[in-house]
């Protein structure tokens, strides 16, 4: 990776760490260990199910919230505080700045998710006393959650490049919700007719698709995830984030910094 991108990425990571973003891990740990202890005492059969469901859902939600709230400020905060002036007057191209910011936030989220994953497996070990083969699928679910983070990061960055933080948060969060139900949206589009069908289909393919990235409940039941789905989901997340980043670059490239 180009040195300037790496530099901006590591600074973004450092900012997140110093702004105490990773403190969410404490809340996560409390939540998970509380749940593990509680479930372990109440019900015997579904304790694993609950730990996986709750753990992975928390990993996903905590990450999404961080991705949105840090992501929306990535560009707009630098413009507002005019820290961008001293960066862009250096040999830093504007697209390098966007890409660097993206990697910085993505890196933060990966580290965050990694710590949480250790917590989930710890809780799993606590309630089940040993790992079984289907637990490996939990790793796939975590991988999908990280793919989801990449998409949300890129979208937050896209909105951050042209809109105020509050609006960006609203946009990014709405897209997260819509994306969670994207499969319903596409089904709806398929059932519609005429003009509505075309518009609905276009929208359904434009919004991010998180349905296929959410395999938490099936993994909690020990169901396998097909390797094809892993490949296509990876490809999808890659293409979609790249698209959003290109959008962000296109907007930011022309933006006057007042």
């Amino acid at each position, binding site marked *: 990776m180009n*040195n*300037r991108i790496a*530099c*901006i990425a590591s*600074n973004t990571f*450092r*900012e997140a760490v*110093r*702004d105490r973003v990773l403190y969410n891990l404490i809340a996560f740990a409390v939540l998970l260990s509380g749940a593990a202890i509680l479930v372990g005492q109440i019900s015997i059969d579904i304790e694993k199910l609950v730990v996986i469901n709750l753990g992975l859902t928390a990993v996903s939600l905590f990450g999404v919230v961080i991705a949105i709230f840090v992501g929306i400020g990535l560009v707009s905060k630098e413009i507002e*505080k*005019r*820290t*961008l*002036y*001293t*960066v*862009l*007057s*250096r*040999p*830093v*191209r504007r697209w390098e700045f966007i890409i660097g910011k993206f990697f910085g936030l993505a890196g933060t989220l990966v580290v965050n998710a990694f710590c949480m994953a250790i917590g989930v497996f710890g809780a799993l070990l606590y309630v089940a006393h040993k790992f079984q083969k289907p637990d490996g699928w939990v790793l796939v679910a975590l991988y999908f959650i990280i793919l989801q983070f990449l998409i949300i990061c890129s979208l937050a960055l896209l909105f951050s490049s042209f809109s105020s933080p509050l609006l960006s948060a609203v946009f990014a969060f709405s897209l997260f919700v819509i994306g969670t139900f994207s499969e319903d949206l596409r089904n709806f589009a398929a059932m519609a007719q005429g003009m509505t069908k075309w518009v609905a289909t276009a929208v359904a393919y434009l919004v991010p698709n998180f349905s296929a990235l959410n395999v938490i409940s099936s993994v909690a039941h020990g169901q396998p995830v097909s390797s094809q789905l892993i490949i296509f989901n990876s490809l999808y997340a890659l293409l979609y984030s790249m698209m959003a980043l290109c959008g962000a670059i296109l907007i930011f490239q*022309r933006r*006057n*910094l*007042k």
Partner: protein
Amino acid sequence: MHAIEIVGLVKVYSVGFWRKRPKCALHPLHLNVEEGEIFGFLGPNGAGKTTTLKMLMGLVFPTSGSARILGRDLNDPGMKAQIGFLPEQPYFYDYLTARELLEYYGRLSGVAGKDLSARVQSVLGRVGLPDVAGVQLRKFSKGMLQRVGIAQAILHEPKVVFLDEPMSGLDPMGRREVRDLMEQLKAEGKTVFFSTHILSDAEALCDRVAVIHLGELRAVGAVADLTSGVQGKVEIVWEGTVVPTSIKTIGATCHVTGDTVRAVVAEESQDLVIDALRRERLRIVSLVPVRTTLEQYFVEKLKRSEKTAGSLA
């Protein structure tokens, strides 16, 4: 080759939310800055100084016109490695320490390794902050931030340094130091382009200045040349409570405070007043030229330019 070459730079903003109206922030600006000079870019607040600087830095895109720095295009990264920029009232990542910030900027400008840490230490010394390298910027005062800002602008030893209001937020000692620093930069063969609304700074430092008002270039040249036509004033203080009649007759305003008299007179009648005081054997305590701030300078300049429509521009 000019250090900076500005050819017909224009910036029009649209203002208003629904019905956008064009607002001209900068009329066609033509300006050349030579290598190795300290060039002052003068004008009252809102004159278009910062807009011009932002366009030169590639932060804002000109509506029309073009500019070259060191003979190269504005978004040429190779050129950008050779310039430094201090924005107006700079603000930096306050979660970083001064050293971390400078290392970050250094890397972005392509300085690396041992060279980098050595330069960071020396530049911090140069701006008078040798002992606070490890302190987070959120604990810095406004003046200290200004110094850090200057440090980051000269860290990578640029050929051209752009400083937007470099003296603001500094105490008199700090201003003195910044002036010295700018003179050092000139001595090192660097070009310094700085904006200010305080003429005294420009008078003390600049080889040449450009004066801009309401987005229009009003004058370019050496400070002395520009202000030669402007009536300066002198403040004279002497002991005693006596005001010689000859001084009264030239229309000076005199204030008697305690056992001294203070009079403000036009520069041209300065000798006359001194002669009168000598004759009366009164002891002169001080004789200070009253600084013509840029605002005052403009009041006269504008009056005159209205009379002799545009003869100065």
